């Protein structure tokens, strides 16, 4: 595809006028706040905003010596690996089966894409209701099996609950991309392997799965970014980071420290760290997905 157009229009003012709305919004609501976050992260301010001091990188040093912050990193790592791992595995299995069947295929697909339309916060409320220790139906069953289920008090249970809600919400997306990946694999390759006597499992392991690696890698990065950022609503609506910070992921901690704790410098420093992680992930996505994972 051409990167540049041959045919162009000439005007000394029109292009600026056309691009102005977007640039203006970007400057006011994006660059200005992002700059503020960078600047804030180098300041220490008391809770009432009366006194401000420029402290260079002290906020970052404090941050990485802060037990709570480090444990939030750990929670984020566990959470995002679980969300990405389980989400990809479940969706791949469903997509592989959906790729095989003829009958009712459309019905399966249609039903599986519905969770995409559900807001993360609503997904959280749904699962919170199902897992509610006093009236939730799933909690009731688990009590029946002898599990002392209480996500409102038990940190591990709370983490399991938000992982399930996050995976449920993301299944549609992963499923669609896996299905498309599967359908773009040339059928002749599979047929050749079948003629050579390879069974369905062997074909999947040695042909389909390796050919699917670009899709898988792409989805892995997208899912990790999803778990890092977009699950904010799930965490806030379902657990508010609790009980005792067991589900406090990085993005939630920025909000909790900044808006509830009023630690502006610390919150800004956390924002900067998370921005750096995100930029890194996005760069990896662009570089590797396009070039390295080829077959």
């Amino acid at each position: 595809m051409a990167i540049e157009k041959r045919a162009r229009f000439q005007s000394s003012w029109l292009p600026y006028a056309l691009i102005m709305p977007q640039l203006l919004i970007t400057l006011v609501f994006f660059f200005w706040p992002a700059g503020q976050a960078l600047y804030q992260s180098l300041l220490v301010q008391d809770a009432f905003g009366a006194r401000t001091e420029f402290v260079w990188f002290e906020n970052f040093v404090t941050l990485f010596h802060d037990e709570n912050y480090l444990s939030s990193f750990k929670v984020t790592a566990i959470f995002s690996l679980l969300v990405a791992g389980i989400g990809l595995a479940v969706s791949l299995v469903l997509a592989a089966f959906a790729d095989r069947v003829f009958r009712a295929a459309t019905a399966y697909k249609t039903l599986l894409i519905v969770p995409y339309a559900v807001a993360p916060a609503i997904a959280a409320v749904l699962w919170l209701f199902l897992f509610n220790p006093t009236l939730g139906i799933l909690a009731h069953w688990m009590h029946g099996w002898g599990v002392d289920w209480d996500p409102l008090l038990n940190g591990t249970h709370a983490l399991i609950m938000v992982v399930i809600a996050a995976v449920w919400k993301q299944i549609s997306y992963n499923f669609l991309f896996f299905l498309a990946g599967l359908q773009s694999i040339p059928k002749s390759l599979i047929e050749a392997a079948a003629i050579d006597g390879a069974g369905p499992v062997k074909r999947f392991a040695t042909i389909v799965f390796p050919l699917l690696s670009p899709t898988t890698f792409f989805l892995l990065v997208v899912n990790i970014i999803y778990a890092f950022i977009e699950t904010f609503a799930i965490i806030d609506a379902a657990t508010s980071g609790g009980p005792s910070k067991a589900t406090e992921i990085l993005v939630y901690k920025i909000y909790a420290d900044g808006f509830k704790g009023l630690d502006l410098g610390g919150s800004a420093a956390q924002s900067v760290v998370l921005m750096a992680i995100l930029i890194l992930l996005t760069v990896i996505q662009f570089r590797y997905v396009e070039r390295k994972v080829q077959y």
Partner: protein
Amino acid sequence: MATSLPEPATSPPRLPFLVRMNLIPRAWQRGTREGMIENRPLLTFVSHLALVIGVAIVAFPIYITFVASSLAPDEVLQSPMPMLPGSHLIENYRQVISQGTTSANVASAPVGRMMWNSLVTALLIACGKIAISLLSAFAIVYFRFRFRALAFWMIFVTLMLPVEVRILPTYKVVSDLNMLDTYAGLTIPLIASATATFLFRQFFLTIPDELAEAARIDGAGPLRFFWDVVVPLSRPNIAALFVILFIYGWNQYLWPLLVTTDESMYTTVIGIKRMIAGGEAATEWNLVMATAMLAMLPPALVVLLMQKWFVKGLVDSEK
């Protein structure tokens, strides 16, 4: 219908990744493959079984929500709650839409009002993004001007930093501009994003140069060309993007949570969060669940009714 990319000329595996991903809409429409490789009844049975179980698990929370939304207040508090719909369906929905709930001992705004707010927000975000992106992509593709590369990169960088990581300073800007509790404050900061601009740029690059040349020879100016040629050609992309952005706007959480303090400006998603904030005892779950159903309905309808556009939009907008 214009497609976003030309038919693949080479064999599929050699195409770059994202180009191949662009073939999804067609793969999707094809639905099934022509002819199975071999007939294995057992494997087919297992496939259907796995899919039925998968669909059942995925649909289960929505079914329970529906059942809960049709129960009387004391029925929903039973443990276990009934698994079949009750008789209070219409009553519950009528109450939340016109009066809201009194959960957490605080009367909420009527959900009808919240849904109106959600609708306005979603439409403003979707249409706003599409409009400013069409214009800026047109400028970037069809003109040479100073700072073009700079402008492009400034827009591009916004891809990487969602509002969640710069909440506080963005909130401060909106508050300084007196935009709290307004539709402008709810929507304009979210309109600044590069995804749509990028998508339109990619698409404009595939429009044959001959069209622009012909337009020029016929004496049509850039704006005329934009309106009479570029916008009509972009219709499939606009439709696909609209579906994705409508859902994105309707489902917004963090931003409306921060900028709305006035009940009458709450969106539906925020309204539900406020309803359950009072904790256990005070929550009227049957009404909360009716509100949840109402919050899910519009985006679900958009996805289901515009499925083809939805899938295209999902794939296209993925950077």
